[in-house]
């Protein structure tokens, strides 16, 4: 056990915190910082519910030691909408395509979807499906998820 001081950016704000070397980023977000948008579905890197961005890249926060984010920029679902609450087009597309039911996997799906679009893995539905397959949805909203990602990618490409 080791206590380590870390400083990082969380959703555009600076966080200074002493963390235990055993603590995952997910647990620090949820249990220390009351930032509970990222969900725990397995704690083993197998479901994607805890997906967040570190320096713009998607990671499963349950397998990311909190100490590793020192000096980095962490974005969670709470940091996706505009400051006035204006939804990101992908969030709106999730609503429009009803790409959710219970909503538990949804923050992770959206964080993955944003990265999937940025990575350019949206050539066709098959590619979207492949690159969104790290995010399980037990409610079975996959058709809507693909539609939301496709629609948003097309819109962004057209801009």
């Amino acid at each position, binding site marked *: 056990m080791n206590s380590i001081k870390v400083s990082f950016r969380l959703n555009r704000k600076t966080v200074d915190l002493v963390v235990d070397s055993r603590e995952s980023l997910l647990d620090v977000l949820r249990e220390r910082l009351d930032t509970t948008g990222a*969900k725990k579905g397995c704690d*083993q890197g197998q479901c994607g519910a805890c997906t967040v961005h570190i320096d713009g890249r998607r990671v499963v926060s349950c397998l990311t030691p909190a100490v590793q984010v020192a000096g980095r920029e962490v974005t969670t679902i709470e940091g996706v909408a505009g400051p006035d609450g204006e939804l990101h087009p992908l969030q709106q597309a999730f609503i429009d395509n009803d790409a959710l039911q219970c909503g538990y996997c949804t923050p992770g799906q959206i964080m993955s979807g944003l990265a999937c679009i940025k990575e350019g893995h949206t050539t066709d539905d098959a590619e979207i499906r492949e690159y969104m397959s790290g995010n399980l949805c037990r409610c*079975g909203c996959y058709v809507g998820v693909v539609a939301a990602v496709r629609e948003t990618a097309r819109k962004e490409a057209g801009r």
Partner: protein
Amino acid sequence: MNVSRRKFLAGTAAVTTAATAAVVATPHDGDAASGPPPSRRVDAREKVTGDLRYASDRLLPGTAHAVYAVATIGKGRLLEVNTKAAEAAPGVRLVLTRVDVKPPGFLQGGGHAFQSLQPLTSDRIAYRGQHIALVVADSLHAATEAAALITARYEAEPIAVEIDAPGAQKVRQSDVLPTAHDVVAGNAPSAFAAAPVKIDHEYESPQSHPVPMELIASVVQWDGDDLTIYEGTQNASAVQNGLALQLGISPERIEVLSPSVGGAFGQKNSLQTHLAPVAVAARRLGRPIKVVVPRTQTFHNASFRPASHHRIRLGADRSGRMLAAMHDVDQQTSRHDYFPAVYTELTSRLYGITNYGSQQNLVRTDVQTPGFMRAPYESPGTFAFESAVDELSYALGKDPVALRLANDTAVDPISGHPFSSRYLADTLRRGSRKFGWSERSAAPGSMRGRDGSLIGWGVAAGAYKAATAPATARLRLIPAGRTYHATIWVDGHEMGQGIRSAVARLVAEDLQLRLEHIEVGVGDTRGVPPQHLTAGSWGTATALPAVYAALKELRKKLGLGAKGPVPSGRGETIVLARSRAPGQPEAIHDRAAQGLPAGAGPEYPEFTAFSFVSHFVEVRVEPTTRRIRVPRVVSTVDCGKVASPRTAESQVRGGVIWGIGAALRERSEVDERFGGFANPTLEEYVVPVNADIGRIDVGLIDKPDFNLNPVGVKGLGEVVMVGVAAAVANAVFHATGRRVRHLPIRLEDVL
């Protein structure tokens, strides 16, 4: 911060009286919005922003974290638990190996829990993975590490985990559960013997796990003698009443808050056994405790779908009229509870077969008690039955859709009563048109894709009882500028199926209010007790009639006609209303209030009620790898009136995906040397992922069933899964000529 239940009840009575006195008729000012309300998911925004708080998203000041240690033998006696190292670990506040609580009682045996066995109350180990000690620490990582330091000595006993393992004990269900009798009509054995065309095969469905994405979790907080439980559950009243019995306190001291559940699928339908020891620990520590059951532990400390073996015998004449059916079942249960087998309730009524026989057996094995995973009986039961019907179609040389249509019935062959509504034939006709079924070439292996893959087209029908339960609704209307704000509390739980959206839409339609002005409270014992079990696909068909009754009551109280908006100028008005299933006595509300299951159906005094579905499935079997893909499915459902089209369509797709999972992926593996389940992670217990799913075309018949309730709704959440696995298996046969009679179907089955 606790609102006591007594206070709430007294308050309601007072406010209701006052509101009655305040009602004064005012003329209609034509101010409110009109037109049909839009269909949308009313809680979608909070779900895409991460603002929605599920149970384990509560972070209360001073929270301690609890983690259980588990048994590492398959069965036996616990001789000693060594907690020394755990107790000495930094941050640990409490380690419990025994708690003084009463066993909770089995849900199907007059109790409140998924099983009667309560860990930490005796030295008995009934299954691998059973909780043996509870560690509470200041942080989650401290509790997790300390729990791993706990060791135990055991006296192991021989085990039998799987349904066909030596040592599993088979009993006839009717001998041990006097209320469960085998469905019999006419004389099936002799009609079968005399039938010119016969099918007689056995089919196997494996044990499997629901794995809702939200882990099983609770946040437990005492405030003096009052206890608040935040837990994702489908049954807040069972948690409340069951826990009260376990702790020996009044249920009025406990509130259960489960406003949004992150998926449940039957696994959260009752009191879980992780809860009582945590409540004891929280009281002792004087701190709130959060417990999040790790994914692996949810495979052993919560319910699952039991394995079942089915023998189906079908007898038909050469024209395709089914003359006799026999459906015998062996279903797994635990040693400590008899989880009932109710497979034949549906297969006896799917067609108009007048000679029907069945025998259902229970097989006692060394597992936690199985339970009601989505379409618990109907999915495995129709995999067997609808596979057999497909086999019959080939034996007869008849088209499988035509065969099903020829055996449709308007009358329940078991009770002799009419169906409340039955559009199975419509679902088959509409589905076959959309799918392009007429293009199918009947011979197995006769259709190929351009890449050489084998194409198979399969069909199956399904149904699910249209159950109903008693419910209570409380409606409050308050003026809000030129319009009104309505708050409706109703008996029900939101697990993602969209009950909140369906309720809001009904209120919006009736009062001609905008959805933004409607707030729906479900799953909260403080809102309107009881919060009876939401399961068996009765949620919408139970909540909406209560809401409907509340709306009628409101109109009466305000002196309004049957339709139209509420004229402006009315003061705050509160009404309370109740509804129950056709034929249920008033006393059924008391049963629900005690947190006991109180659903009814499919047999009602004057009719039999089911929802119906048909699935048309295309599979492609890749020529070299033999990988089986499902590029498209056409599913058409008769669920009565569609209460919430938007959420309904998603529910259908979800159910189809569950069926594909059952058909091609899911099985909880067992190693008889060790016990328990050997693949208890989301990596090894394989559920469908995005890349597994192609097109799913949803059709909704949308014909109201006013026999069942005044809103015309029947259930949807489970019927949508029923028959999918059979349709996939039938498609695999059509593609390959291989009749696979077990699930899941894996590529080794079609090599």
